[in-house]
């Protein structure tokens, strides 16, 4: 029962939702709406799993005095500050909750991703080598695309056209092939899950 009933639920749910796409009768549309509505509610509680996990991991690191354990107090302080401020002061613009979002979370998050600009430049200098034919193709294409943003006088128009052609023809072909591969893999995985062949998402006994 610990395996059979969940596998039956997956099978019935999967087959119904797949068939419903092709048979949009009123009663099947109703059931489809209820399914989608209810799963969103299940998802609301599932998101809480991650929060509890974060709390447990931080407390565990503090208790066991793991390397850099003192910093986990900051994690917990940030977590509880936001929760308490959100619950007691509200989430409207201008409240303390949103101030912490705009003046702590936003600059840190934006800066972390801004670091990638430095790493991209470092990678371009240290790793981007025309060692082989395929590497040279990659490198030349990247340079042509980057030249789009540089005014080149009389050659600008030609460069814009070449870059546009690269994006809409060979790049498009490559990305379409990758997307098709992803689609085929996704359908195969979805079928394996619905038919009960793939069960890793259920965990172990």
């Amino acid at each position, binding site marked *: 029962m610990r395996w059979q009933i969940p596998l039956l639920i997956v099978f019935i749910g999967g087959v119904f939702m797949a068939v419903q796409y092709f048979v949009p009768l009123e009663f099947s549309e109703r059931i489809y709406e209820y399914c989608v509505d209810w799963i969103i509610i*299940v*998802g609301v509680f599932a998101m809480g799993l991650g929060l509890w996990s974060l709390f447990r991991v931080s407390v565990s690191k503090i208790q066991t005095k793991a390397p850099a354990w003192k910093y986990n107090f900051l994690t917990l*302080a940030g977590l509880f500050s936001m929760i308490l401020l*959100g619950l007691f002061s509200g989430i409207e613009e201008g409240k303390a909750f949103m101030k912490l979002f705009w003046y702590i979370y936003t600059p840190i998050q934006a*800066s972390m991703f801004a670091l990638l*600009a430095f790493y991209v430049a470092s990678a371009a200098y240290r790793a981007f080598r025309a060692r082989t034919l395929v590497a040279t193709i990659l490198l030349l*294409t990247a340079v042509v695309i980057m030249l789009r943003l540089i005014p080149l006088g009389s050659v600008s128009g030609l460069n814009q056209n070449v870059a546009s052609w690269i994006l809409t023809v060979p790049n498009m072909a490559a990305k379409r092939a990758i997307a098709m591969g992803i689609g085929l893999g996704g*359908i195969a995985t979805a079928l394996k899950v*619905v038919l009960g062949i793939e069960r890793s998402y259920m965990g172990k006994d």
Partner: protein
Amino acid sequence: MGTGEIIWNGLALFMTLCIFSILYRDNPFYRIAEHLVVGVSAGYFAIILYYTSFIPKVWVPVVHEHKFYYLVPTLLGVLMWARFSRKWSWVSRYPIAAYMGIGMGVAIPVTMQTLILVPLHATMQPMGFTSMALFNNLLVAGGVLCALVYFFFSKEHTGAFGGVAKVGIWTLMVGFGAGFGLTVMGRVSLLIERFTFIRDYLQNVLGL
């Protein structure tokens, strides 16, 4: 800028510089910002989820509108939490099964339509050598076919098959090169925004 804004933006500037300090070397300021953002983002998400999802989708329908059938998905959601108990973790399989079944069932026809059938139809366009548009269609169809052949690893890439796969990898490299070129622009945009913030703050506060 008022005093409050100067202080809050000063805090944002401090956080920005804490993160940028990693470029020199690892240091406590970076660690402080790194750990703080994890807690703040988790707390932010928890509260947004509470106000935008739990209240309108669970609390109001059940408590105020008496739509008690919403207790069924609520119970399923609570059963997810059994995952943390070694003895009762099998109970969490029921809501996971419901989510996976519905999600996978929805995905099959939609993925087939949007990632296979429509792109296949779009690839099979009139081809030829008499105009640039027809020639481009030929290149696209050839490029897609060659790249798909490259991903077929059940046969060794030798002979004619290997030749087609080689053209496929060249096509893929053009795609990755285009991606890298656009990635540089994307990453630099984020840096521009941060430096613009630092410049504006220094101009407003220090009159530079």
